[in-house]
């Protein structure tokens, strides 16, 4: 059943009484009362992008008021790609993928003290998926600095959960954000635009156009960057882009010791490993843009498959890197394998070999493309789990060994391992918090053990935390992936004082009733939902 709201010249919201909601990879279902779906006013009725943007903001405020009046929660989501329950809210969920306005920044909107180039700045509304942003930027001669491994997430979802690629000198998606437009309630003062005070970007002309109150405050901005969806409705993000570029992508076999040494040091320039044509004038290896290591934990390989990418200036005329024919494994076959794995744990290593051949690119594969072409559409649409643990690169080999041993001794589990590397983020709760973070990822198919002999996913997730704690390795967990989010003291253990700092900034920005509005079970599970009243003055004040 659905109800449609349509007044004249307004964004339209359909109300679905759904009962349950699920993630894209079926990690639920979760009981849910209402799903809202908002569409923008037609361009022909309201040609100005700014007018339609403000019109959408008014519609969101109307929905927030309804939720506040009912003392209910409200949470927006886009593509539902997170595998944790971070996007779920039991009362009101808002599907925002149709809110996809895009706008370049005009000269009269630049702050006089900005160091950013006007041509590199764009405002993207929350529901833009990465693919449409990449297409739009390409047409403007620009590119995102980095993306995740695929392109279907919305920009608001990416930023608020810390989506990352493996760009070791660039950072995660949130690290390109220079301005955040939040809707934090239904009042006239509840549309805010956040920036860092040490790196201002846009002026009051811009803020007035989107009817926002400006707060320039580094601490608040960094806290709201990876907000877990809890600092308000993320309406739009100002992103710094760069000139479009090409990536030369190679897949190679590399002996295990060298692969792990590179993982621990990132010292590519001094390494024995080099790719023909990817060296400097003196023959020293170039530093790659991207480095990834694939590992099958059930095989004692002497070599690992690695993926390296080197950044090049853009030029046209390269062969299309997107395959003309894209095949996929029968879904029924995948389900059959999971079913076998659930009953016969000894079959899992064989299953992993099958997955490995289906999921990994062929060795000695080489291709060139833009960022958007290399990290193109994801193929798999079915059930999946993913655990992703961040550690300092110096701990990466030890952490990988611990996780592989865990799978071998207490598993097996139907997943393959990989390591990716991301530059440190300034976001208060970024899981890419180490100088260079190694994200050790375990991706596979959801399973439900039929016998006690096979460990369950929740138990496996708990054991990951216990093993890292027992070995005194500092770690983080990817907000959008599977983890034991209710593990006592987990967030404090991962982020130390930053956990409370994040909470303080949130409580400074929001009122008690709006803090409750933007809370959910996930926030309660990780212990960050409590409304703090003893927040120091100035936490939500503009400093510049």
């Amino acid at each position, binding site marked *: 059943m659905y109800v449609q709201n349509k007044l004249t010249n307004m964004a339209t919201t359909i109300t679905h009484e*759904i009962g349950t909601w699920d993630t894209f990879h079926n990690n639920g279902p979760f009981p849910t009362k209402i799903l809202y779906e908002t569409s923008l006013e037609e361009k022909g009725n309201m040609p100005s*992008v700014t007018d339609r943007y403000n019109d959408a903001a008014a519609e969101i405020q109307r929905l927030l008021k309804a939720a506040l009046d009912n003392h209910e929660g409200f949470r927006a989501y886009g*593509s539902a790609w997170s595998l944790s329950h971070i996007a779920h809210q039991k009362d009101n969920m808002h599907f925002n993928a149709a809110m*996809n306005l895009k706008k370049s920044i005009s000269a009269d909107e630049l702050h006089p003290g900005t160091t950013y180039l006007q041509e590199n700045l764009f405002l993207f509304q929350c529901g833009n*998926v990465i693919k449409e942003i990449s297409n739009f930027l390409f047409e403007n001669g620009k590119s995102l600095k980095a993306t995740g491994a695929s392109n279907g997430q919305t920009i608001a979802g990416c930023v608020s959960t810390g989506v990352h690629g493996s760009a070791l000198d660039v950072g995660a998606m949130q690290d390109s954000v220079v301005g955040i437009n939040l809707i934090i309630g239904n009042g006239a003062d509840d549309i805010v635009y956040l920036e860092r005070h040490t790196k201002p970007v846009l002026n009051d002309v811009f803020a007035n156009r989107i009817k926002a109150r400006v707060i320039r405050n580094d601490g608040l901005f960094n806290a709201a960057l990876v907000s877990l969806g809890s600092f308000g409705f993320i309406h739009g993000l100002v992103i710094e882009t760069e000139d479009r570029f090409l990536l030369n992508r190679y897949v190679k076999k590399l002996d295990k010791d060298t692969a792990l040494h590179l993982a621990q040091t990132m010292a590519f320039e001094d390494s024995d490993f080099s790719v023909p044509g990817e060296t400097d004038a003196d023959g020293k290896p170039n530093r790659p843009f991207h480095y990834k290591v694939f590992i099958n934990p059930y095989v004692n390989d002497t070599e690992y498959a690695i993926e390296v990418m080197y950044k090049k200036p853009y030029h046209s005329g390269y062969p299309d890197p997107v395959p003309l024919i894209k095949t996929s494994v029968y879904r029924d076959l995948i389900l059959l394998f999971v079913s076998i794995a659930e009953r016969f744990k000894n079959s899992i290593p064989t299953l992993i070999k099958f997955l490995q051949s289906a999921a990994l690119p062929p060795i000695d594969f080489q291709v060139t493309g833009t960022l958007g072409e290399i990290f193109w559409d994801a193929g798999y649409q079915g059930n999946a789990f993913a655990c992703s643990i961040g550690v300092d690169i110096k701990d990466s080999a030890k952490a990988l060994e611990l996780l592989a041993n865990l799978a071998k001794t207490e598993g097996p589990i139907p997943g393959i391992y990989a390591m990716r590397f991301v530059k440190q983020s300034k976001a208060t709760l970024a899981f890419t918090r180490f100088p260079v973070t190694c994200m050790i990822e375990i991706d596979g198919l959801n399973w439900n053990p039929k016998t006690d002999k096979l460990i369950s996913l929740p138990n496996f997730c708990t054991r990951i935390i216990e093993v890292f704690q027992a070995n005194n390795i500092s770690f983080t967990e990817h907000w959008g992936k599977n983890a034991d989010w209710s593990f006592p003291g987990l967030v404090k253990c991962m982020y130390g004082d930053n956990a409370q700092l994040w909470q303080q900034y949130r409580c400074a920005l929001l009122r008690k009733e709006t803090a409750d509005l933007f809370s959910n079970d996930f926030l309660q599970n990780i212990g960050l939902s409590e409304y703090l009243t003893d927040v120091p003055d100035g936490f939500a004040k503009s400093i510049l």
Partner: protein
Amino acid sequence: MKSAAVNYKNPFRKLCIATVLMIFLSSCYSVRVVNRDAVPEPDPLNTSGDFYKGKKVHVLDTVIRLKPQEGAFSLIEKCQSQGFYSFEYRVTFGGVLLNTVTFGRKRQVKIKYVCSKQAD
């Protein structure tokens, strides 16, 4: 005698059924064309679990009747200005048979398509 006849008939019948099924199944297939740079129009309620999961799907399942003087036809469908994200046509044994026995005057159409997301 009767039970012997049944024993004789059963395997033969099974063989016939299996053969017919094989012909029908192998003569059913679909082809999907996807626009490389397009973004699909989303549908949060589509939980199909296949390629169409999360996408707004339009289905055409009909039989087109042509007059003797008509040799071709166009189906006019509306996607927004961004055009199609994907379309998939399905060929079935029954459809081919229908086309054959009616000398091309009746043509079964089974198409699924997804429009591109409106760009703003």
